[in-house]
C-alpha cells in the first residue's frame, strides 16, 4: 500500500469563490483512517480554513454526510483505503445549497420534518401516566427499521426527484411518517396521510430506489413511499365507494 493518497476536496468560500472549485491535497494513507480522518488531517496540518461538519465519528449523529467519489456517504464510516490508490473526490452532499466548502444548507429538511407529524398521536388524552403502553416484540419489529433514521440526508442527496423538485417532502421525512404509522401506540396515520396525499407528498417519487441503497442505517424510504401511495389509493377508493357511515 502507498503511504499517502490524494484527496480532491471541493471548496467554496463565499467571500473568495464565485463557485465551488476542487482543491488537491495529499494525506497519509493508513488502514484505520476514514475519509473524515483525512479531512481532519488537512484541517489540522495543511489548511485550517477547510470547513465541514462532524461530531460523533461513529456513524450515529448523522452530521458528516458528503459525496465521496459521487456517492453520498457518512465520511466517518468510509475508509480511505477502500479508495486506494486514489484520488478520493470529496464534495458537499448533492441537491442541497452549499453554504461553505463541504457544508450544505439543510434548513429545507428541518422545515419539512414537522409537516409529517413525526410524533405519537393518540385519541385518548393521557395526563397521568400509570404504566407503559403494551407493545409486543413483533409490534416493535414492525416499525423498528424505520426508527433507525439518523437524518444524515444521504437519501436526499441521492434522490434525483428532490434535486429537481425541491417541493418534494423527500425520503427521510416520509420514512419517519411511516415509522409512526407502523407504531402500535400511534393513531395518527390519517393525519399524516392528509399531508402526504398532496402532490408534493409521495407522488413526486418515481421509485428510483437510490434513497434506500445509500441509507447507512438500512432504512427503506423508497419502500415507505410506495406503501404510502398504496395506502393513499386504498383509502381514496374506500372513500369514493363506501357511504360515509361505513368508512374507517
Amino acid at each position, binding site marked *: 500500500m502507498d503511504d499517502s493518497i490524494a484527496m480532491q476536496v471541493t471548496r467554496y468560500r463565499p*467571500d473568495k469563490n464565485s463557485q465551488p472549485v476542487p482543491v488537491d491535497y495529499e494525506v497519509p494513507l493508513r488502514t*484505520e483512517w476514514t475519509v473524515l480522518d483525512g479531512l481532519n488531517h488537512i484541517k489540522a496540518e495543511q489548511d485550517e480554513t477547510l*470547513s465541514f461538519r462532524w461530531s460523533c465519528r461513529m456513524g450515529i449523529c448523522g452530521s458528516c454526510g458528503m459525496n465521496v467519489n459521487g456517492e453520498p456517504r457518512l465520511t466517518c464510516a468510509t475508509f480511505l483505503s477502500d479508495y486506494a490508490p486514489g484520488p478520493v473526490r470529496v464534495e458537499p452532499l448533492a441537491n442541497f445549497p452549499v453554504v461553505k466548502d463541504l457544508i450544505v444548507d439543510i434548513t429545507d429538511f428541518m422545515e419539512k420534518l414537522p409537516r409529517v407529524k413525526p410524533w405519537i398521536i393518540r385519541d385518548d388524552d393521557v395526563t397521568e401516566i400509570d404504566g*407503559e403502553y*403494551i407493545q409486543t416484540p413483533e409490534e416493535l419489529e414492525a416499525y423498528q427499521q424505520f426508527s433507525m433514521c439518523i437524518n444524515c440526508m444521504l437519501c436526499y442527496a441521492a434522490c434525483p426527484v428532490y434535486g429537481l423538485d425541491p417541493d418534494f417532502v423527500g425520503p427521510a421525512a416520509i420514512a419517519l411518517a411511516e415509522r*409512526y404509522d407502523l407504531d402500535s401506540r400511534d393513531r395518527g396515520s390519517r393525519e399524516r396521510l392528509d399531508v402526504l396525499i398532496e402532490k408534493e407528498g409521495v407522488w413526486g417519487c418515481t421509485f428510483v430506489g437510490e434513497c434506500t441503497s445509500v441509507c447507512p442505517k438500512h432504512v427503506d424510504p423508497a419502500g415507505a413511499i410506495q406503501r404510502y401511495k398504496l395506502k393513499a389509493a386504498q383509502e381514496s377508493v374506500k372513500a369514493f365507494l363506501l357511504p360515509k357511515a361505513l368508512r374507517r
Partner: protein
Amino acid sequence: MSEGATTAAHDVLLVGGGAAGLRAAIAIAETRPDLDVAVVSKVYPMRSHTVSAEGGAAGVMADDDSIEEHIYDTISGSDWLGDQDAIEAFVNEAPRELLQLEHWGCPWSRQDDGRIAVRAFGGMKKMRTWFAADKTGFHMLHALFQTSLKYRAVKRYDESFVTRLLVDEGRVYGVVSVELATGRIRAITAKAVVLATGGCGKVFPFTTNANINTGDGMALAYRAGAPLKDMEFVQYHPTGLPFTGILITEATRAEGGWLLNKDGYRYLQDYDLGTPTDKPTLRSMELGPRDRLSQAFVHEVEKGRTTDSPWGPIVHLDLRHLGAKLIDTKLPMVRELCLQYERIDPVTDLIPVRPVVHYMMGGVHTDIDGRAGLDGLYAAGETACVSINGANRLGSNSLPECLVFGARAGRAAAEDAAAAPAPPAAIAAQVSDETRRLEHLLARDTPLDDGVARIREELQTTMEDAAGIYRTGPSLEKGADTFQALRERVGAVGVRDTSPSFNTELVAALELENLIDIGECILRSGLAREESRGAHQRTDFPKRDDERFLVHHTVRRDHDGNPSVDRLPVTITRWPPGERTYGR
C-alpha cells in the same frame, strides 16, 4: 460579522439541544404554554451527543426491585460523594420519566408479553436498565426531538454557538451567540437560562465523546462567576475501541461478555471484584463499576499481562459465547461498530478494548432543581453536577439524569422567568464588548508556527499525563504549570479563516478557550483532593479519607481569573458512609 449584534428576546432560553435541553423545553411548553421558550444549540438537536449513548437508562420497574436498592447502588457507586437527597429524588422520578418517554414513542425493547424489558448493568444490584437495543441514547434523543417538534411555540436557534452569558449584578439575562451559517452575532435575552451543553471529554486526547463535547456550558458558567463542582472526577469507561475511542457499551458485559487479559484470563477476579461465573452476576466481576474496572486495567498493564497494539496496551472483550442471535437482537450496534471500525466480528472474534475517557461527574454546581450559582441560571445533564454521581457514575444513570433534572430545571426556570425582572440596560455594553472580542479574534493574525489544532493536542496530552486514571500531586502540578504556558498561547492564537460564514476555525478557537478553563479546573480540584475516591485515584494518597474529604470541591474563578477551590458538605441523609464492596 461587522454589522454589530442583532437581538432576540425570550422568556426561557435553553443552551443545548440534547436530552436534558429538549426535556426541559418540553417541560416548559407543557407546564407554562404562555412562556416563550427557545433552544439554542451549536449543532442540530438530533446531532447532540445523547445520540451516542448505547446501553440504557436505569429506572426501578421490575417487581423484585425497589427504590431503596437503586438509591443504595447509586450512593455506594458514587463512593458516598453523591448528595443523598438528590439521589432519592432522582431514583423516585426516573421511572416516570422513562414511561413518559415511552408514551412519546421511544422504542424500548420489550419482553414477550409486551411490557418493558430491563437488563443488568455495572454496579447495579438488580436488573433495572431500560434499553432500546444498544442504541438507547439515539432513540431517546430522536423521540425527544421529534416530540419537541409538536410544540410550535418553542423556537430554535440551530447551529448557533453561545460565547458568553449576559450577567448583571448576579443575575443572568441571556446570552451572546454566533449563528454559524452566517456569522451573525446575536444577543438573545431571557429571564432564565438553562445550560444543557453536555460534557467535556474533549479535554482529553482519547475519549468516547463527540467532537462537540468541549465543556461549553461549564466554561460559560465558570467565566460568569458560577462555581463548578466535583471537577476532579472524570470517568474512564473500561471498554473503548483502540484508536477511535468508540464506546463498546457496558451492555456487552451485562449480557454476559468477559474481559480477558493476554493469557485469556478473566483478570478482574484478582482485583476484589468477585469470582468468575459463567452467567453474569450482578455487582460482580465484569458487572463491577467503571472506576474499578478501569483501574484494574492499569494494574494489568503494570504486570505485563496486556497485549500491545499500535495504540498502546489493550485487553480483550469476549462475546463469542453469547452467540449471533443474542448479539444481533440486543447488541446490534456493537457488531456493526466492530465490523466497520475494527473489521472483526464479535460473534467469532475477540474485541480489543482499553479504558477511555467517557463522562464528567463534575459540572456546574446546582441544587436539586437545577439552580446554579447565579440568579436565573440553571443547568442540567452532564453539564451540571447536582450531584447524584459523586466520585463515580453508574452506567445507565446518566440518561435518566438528563430527563429527571432536565424536567426539574425546566420547570424551575419557568417559575423563575414568570417573576423575573426585565433585562437592564447594562447588558447592552456587554453585548458590544463580546462583539468586539469576537471581531478581534477574527482579525488577529495567528502565529505562523502555532494554531488551534496544535494547542488543543498539547492540552489534551497534558491532561492525560497529569490527570489520567491514576494521578499524583507532582503530575497534577506539572500539568498545571504546562497550562500556564498553554494559556498564553491560547491568548495569542488567531484564526486564518476570516470569512463570516460557517467559520469552524473560529468555533474551534472559542472551544479551545473553554477546554483550557475546564482542564485547569480539573487539575486544581484534583490537586486539592488528597485522597483516592471513585474515579479520582491518587497514588500518593491511595486511601479514601472521609475525615478530610467527605466533601465536594467547588471551583470558582477568582478576581485574578484563577481557579479557587472551596469545600461544600455532602448531603447525607439515611445512608452513612460505608465500604464499597463488589462481588461479595
